[in-house]
């Protein structure tokens, strides 16, 4: 018969399905049969498709065009964004397979067309196609954990296991045990120790006898050992004599990851957990380590315990693995960069400590400076070394000679060790072993005075990395002093800032990127976008110029922007947009580099726009628009010059 009516499998669906996992594994016949059951629906932007715990999904939704976000709203109305899903992604597989209501809230973030596959047809595939079930189970592992986690939160109980990603999803308030154990500050040391023994705990909060909600201090096992037994203090003394008065706190809704970062950066291992101004418990590094198998924290501790420099080599090689895990667990780029800095700093600190033991104490105080991205705490996977040494001005020629010799040897050895740890040499020789960059305070001040006083646009680009210095090891007061000097200098030198601002604006945001592809036109990276110079650098430069102008001491780009916003130099709204845009680009770069490392190629910054999803393109485009706004701020500020 002539007319080609009814149930032919529509080609558009077959074509779509054969391009996405796991449907691409189906044989042709099955694929066509499945396609026959598919319908198309359209959901305008803003449509709520699923409500967690309420919606009973009747179909598997496959996004043909558009994008959705998934999120969770907790009992207190607080919203946690889970992820964005774009074209080719599915919605509803997990609740269909488990036979439950929707586990997440789903809302369209763009006008979205979906292919709808009836629940029964999907379940039939799950049952009959072995690869099928496996695919979904694998990609669920994270989602299942998240679901388990929300159920857990609802029931207010703790559970342990191999759930590595708890570090990022679990809030501190969820892992604390029972109510906080505490004792009045007029109790004796012995009474306190007995309470700790009875409760089998390693720390005890101390409250004001007049108000047991008012926490005035904390004691730990270590205090009993160091301040009582070792010091021969009378056990009858008041516990207030040995308590630590400033109780470090963490908000109950902080993630365990945040708590861990705080512990690692402050060296305090017992944090009081605060909710609505009340202390509701204590979280310790041990509690968090129990959540975390191969944790950044255990590596951190292991580094600190090394007695030989050579012992650091293999440990530093573990850092990329840790980063990889963090990315896979869904950590934010900003957090990852901070974690990388902490671990690298720990390696450096241990290495230079051991090196000092080997060479004997330095003749004068010094500070090991970290420059560029290390200085800004923005490293990704292994980045080149950028470092320098600043030391106290020697009082005479003899001391100058000794200092010069000591620090040359010291720097030579340190740089070699760093290379062995996997930090490549700086091709521009901006390293402490270069005599030019191993100098006393007065010389460093001259350097900066020169760069600022008689700015040479050519040179400017090469020296910007020096402006992001921070203390890596040694007497940090030397770095602080230099920073203070620099800020005073630069706020007086408008002409220099003007040059710097011009350099900033020289990098055009690739706004028309998606239409005409402002990407590299030739060479190896043809048609690729250099996310570092085109995307991230404008933010870094902007933050640096304004930080210098307003004397902000921070070096980290996001911290600089945050301070600038808090001090009212940029609007809160611009800070929020810039924060989001910068973090998004860092994330994109990390994922790109991770993929390269897993493929066995060297990580670079060249992103292929063709490989981005529509949603990623959209977000990237929006972040480029923020760059235009930053340039607008610079134009206004430096218009007069």
């Amino acid at each position, binding site marked *: 018969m002539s007319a080609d009516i*009814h149930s032919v499998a529509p080609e558009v669906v077959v074509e779509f399905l054969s391009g996405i996992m796991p449907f691409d594994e189906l044989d042709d016949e099955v694929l066509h049969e499945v396609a*026959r059951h598919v319908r198309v*629906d359209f959901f305008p932007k803003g449509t709520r498709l699923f409500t967690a715990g309420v919606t009973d999904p009747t179909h598997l939704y496959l996004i043909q065009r558009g994008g959705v976000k998934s999120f969770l709203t907790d009992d207190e109305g607080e919203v946690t964004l889970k992820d964005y899903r774009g074209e080719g992604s599915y919605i509803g597989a997990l609740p269909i397979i488990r036979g439950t209501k929707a586990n997440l809230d789903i809302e369209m973030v763009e*006008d979205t067309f979906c292919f709808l596959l009836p629940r029964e047809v999907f379940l039939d595939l799950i049952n009959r196609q072995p690869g099928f079930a496996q695919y979904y189970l694998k990609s669920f592992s994270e989602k299942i954990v998240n679901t388990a986690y929300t159920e857990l939160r609802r029931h207010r109980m703790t559970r342990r296991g191999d759930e590595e990603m708890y570090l990022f999803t679990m809030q501190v308030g969820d892992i604390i045990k029972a109510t906080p154990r505490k004792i009045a500050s007029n109790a004796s040391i012995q009474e306190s120790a007995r309470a700790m023994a009875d409760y089998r705990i390693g720390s005890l909060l101390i409250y004001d006898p007049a108000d047991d909600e008012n926490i005035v201090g904390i004691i730990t096992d270590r205090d009993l050992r160091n301040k009582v037994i070792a010091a021969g203090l009378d056990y009858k003394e008041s516990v207030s004599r040995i308590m630590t008065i400033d109780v470090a706190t963490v908000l109950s809704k902080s993630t365990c990851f945040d708590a861990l970062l705080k512990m690692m950066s402050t060296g305090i291992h017992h944090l009081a957990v605060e909710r609505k101004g009340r202390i509701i418990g204590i979280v310790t590094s041990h509690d968090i380590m129990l959540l975390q198998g191969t944790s950044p924290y255990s590596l951190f501790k292991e580094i600190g315990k090394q007695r030989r420099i050579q012992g650091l080599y293999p440990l530093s090689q573990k850092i990329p693995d840790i980063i990889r895990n963090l990315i896979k667990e869904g950590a934010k780029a900003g957090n990852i960069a901070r974690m990388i800095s902490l671990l690298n700093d720990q390696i450096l600190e241990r290495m230079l400590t051991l090196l000092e033991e080997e060479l004997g104490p330095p003749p004068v105080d010094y500070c090991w400076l970290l420059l560029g991205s290390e200085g800004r705490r923005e490293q990704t996977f292994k980045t080149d070394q950028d470092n320098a040494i600043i030391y106290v001005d020697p009082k005479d020629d003899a001391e100058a000679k000794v200092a010069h010799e000591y620090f040359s040897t010291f720097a030579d050895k340190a740089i070699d060790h760093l290379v062995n740890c996997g930090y490549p040499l700086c091709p521009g020789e901006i390293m402490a072993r270069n005599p030019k960059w191993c100098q006393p305070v007065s010389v460093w001040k001259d350097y900066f005075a020169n760069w600022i006083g008689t700015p040479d646009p050519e040179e400017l680009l090469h020296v910007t990395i020096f402006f992001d210095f921070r203390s890596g090891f040694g007497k940090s007061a030397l770095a602080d002093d230099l920073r203070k000097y620099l800020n005073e200098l630069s706020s007086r030198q408008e002409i220099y800032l003007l040059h710097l601002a011009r350099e900033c604006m020289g990098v055009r945001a690739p706004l028309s990127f998606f239409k005409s592809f402002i990407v590299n036109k030739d060479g190896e990276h043809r048609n690729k976008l250099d996310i570092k110079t085109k995307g991230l650098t404008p933010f870094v430069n902007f933050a640096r110029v304004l930080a210098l102008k307003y004397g902000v001491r921070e070096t980290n780009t996001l911290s600089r922007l945050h301070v600038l916003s808090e001090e009212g130099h940029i609007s809160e709204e611009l800070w929020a947009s810039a924060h989001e845009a910068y973090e998004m680009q860092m994330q994109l770069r990390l994922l790109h580099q991770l993929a390269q490392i897993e493929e066995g190629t060297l990580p670079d910054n060249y992103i292929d726009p063709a490989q981005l999803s529509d949603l990623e393109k959209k977000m990237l485009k929006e972040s480029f628009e923020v760059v235009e706004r930053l340039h607008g701020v610079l134009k206004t500020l430096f218009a007069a010059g």
Partner: protein
Amino acid sequence: MSLRDIFFSFRKPHPALEKNRELFNDFSQGGLLTDYHFVVFDTELTGLNKRKDEIISIGAVRIVNLQIELSQTFHCYVRPKNIDPNEATLVHRITPEQLRHAPSIEEVLPEFLDFCGDALLVGHFVSIDMYFLNKASRKALGGMVSNPSVDTMRLARGFKEGQCIDHFGGCDQSESFNLDDLSEEFNLPRFKPHDALEDALQTAYLFLFLAKKLKHGGIRTLKELYLAGRILGLMGRG
């Protein structure tokens, strides 16, 4: 009513047409959009000369519950009467061979009407398609089809007017309303143009988009849809 009676008295219509008329005896606009069936269709023609040109292919897809039923499609070629098949294939991706072996419009129309059933017909600039469909139907079946029609071009106009009035208080009339440009503008999934079925699918996506975006999603009944497209007076009966 009166028009229909005139045609009714003119000649005894084909049974397919009689059935088609019965389906719309008590048609009402008051129901929910999700309760109606729509058949989105497109015809390819030998040309646009109303007197001598004719249909050479029909493509259609059904919409139920405001979802596109991709497996319920209609697609067929029609052997033209007046024109050498070799001449009619300039714009279309149809070979003369396909046309020579295609059934005649007399064979195709009853099948198409059967496929349409009680659905409303949807098309882009639907009055042209309706003209040629009715012209053929009058000749072949002895009367016009009764299915009311909806024009996505008018809906698009209504949508865009609503949009610019919201934002600027005025409206640029110079914009293009052809199917291709609208699909691009609204970022719809794309189909290959100049194939009746693909164009029908493209129009179906456009229809879905407009039905749900008009009045910020506030359209619930068919009547509201007509009002929003400002096409009350043009509700198609031919």
